């Protein structure tokens, strides 16, 4: 029995260390996957609510497993891992800092959903050119699409806005 329970804020901090298995430059907090962390009134059960990015994303099982492992390592004995679908996941939850790291990593970050569709074409993450063209609406993971830069001619992945 653990004498003192970690606060919800501490739990959030651990969860921020868990990287996305497909795009390790982002944490699961950067992606907005964790929706809630809460102790029950008796403080003997911790609830963590997560939401899937795309409905069938295979990475979700790995992420859930990582959260269980991490919680256990930190002495959480009773974890209730909930899947919450509403509000539906959106790339608008991604912070500017996370977007900058994504660009640095070579993946064009998602545009805000408030931007007009025509202006939402991603800039090349390598040379910054706005002259880009979609090659395929789907890429190596459900959340990405394939583009080509018309200036530096490099192909690149773009995180789809969703």
């Amino acid at each position, binding site marked *: 029995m653990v004498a003192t329970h970690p606060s919800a804020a501490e739990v959030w901090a651990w969860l921020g260390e868990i990287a996305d298995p497909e795009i390790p430059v982002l944490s699961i907090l950067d992606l907005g996957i964790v929706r809630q962390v809460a102790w029950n009134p008796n403080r003997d059960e911790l609830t963590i609510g997560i939401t899937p990015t795309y*409905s069938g*994303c295979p990475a979700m099982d790995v992420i859930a497993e990582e959260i269980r492992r991490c919680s256990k390592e930190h002495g959480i004995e009773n974890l209730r891992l909930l899947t919450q679908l509403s509000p539906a996941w959106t790339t608008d939850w991604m912070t500017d800092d996370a977007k900058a790291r994504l660009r640095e990593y070579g993946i064009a970050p998602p545009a805000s959903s408030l931007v007009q569709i025509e202006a939402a074409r991603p800039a090349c993450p390598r040379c910054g050119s706005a002259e880009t063209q979609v090659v395929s609406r789907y890429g190596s993971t459900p959340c990405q699409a394939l583009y080509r830069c018309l200036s530096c001619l490099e192909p690149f992945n773009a995180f789809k806005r969703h």
Partner: protein
Amino acid sequence: MAAGALFEYVLRLGDNCLILSQRLSELCGHGPVLEEDIAIANIALDLLGHARFWLSYAGEIEGEGRDEDKLAFLRDAGDFRNVLLVEQPNGDYAMTVARQFFFDAWYFHILRGLKNSVDARVASIAEKAFKEVTYHLERSTDWMLRMGDGTEESHRRMQAAVNDLWMYTGELFEMDEVDREMVELGGGVDLANLHPLWTEHIARTFAEATLEIPESKWMQRGGKRGVHTEKLGYLLAEMQFLQRAYPGAQW
């Protein structure tokens, strides 16, 4: 809400997603070009995700211990409630695209309606799925235009695919007692209201794609009450093989 109608309604949604996902999965590694192979696999994954949400909920409503896996792997063809359209084979790529287009346009409007369902769980699944299916519909509409208004051969194949599949579209809008009960309770979508919206999208796309809407009014039906084409049995034989041969096997 009446559990019987809700179970049946949610089961149908789950079966539509599951069976179409399985069909699309057959193309994994066999797509006509790499980009399409990836796209099809991704769409199959989205639909599999929806199937898991719907079937898990159906199992909970029923309350007899059947989870998503039991519902997917341990029912025979006569217990499946998907529409006939989604069990049709992939055929040539025009067939795969046309089937997807008819389904996407229908599922898009179903989900848009279900976002307002009085059943909170149905509404949350619909809200989630709607965003993904909006993207699916954009893609399948694009392909109808490219193939319909493409080369002589792509046009011929697409028109043939549309003609072959048309008889499976009537069932999408047929209301039975389950649909009526769900509409009355505020949990389901009125398919009669949805039909003109679907037809409008099809007509607009066909006009631009230089395709003709088939004149035949004769429609196949039965999937919603478990009467299927013989093609479903072969699909299930492959999908369910492992659980049938090795009951309870897990990854």
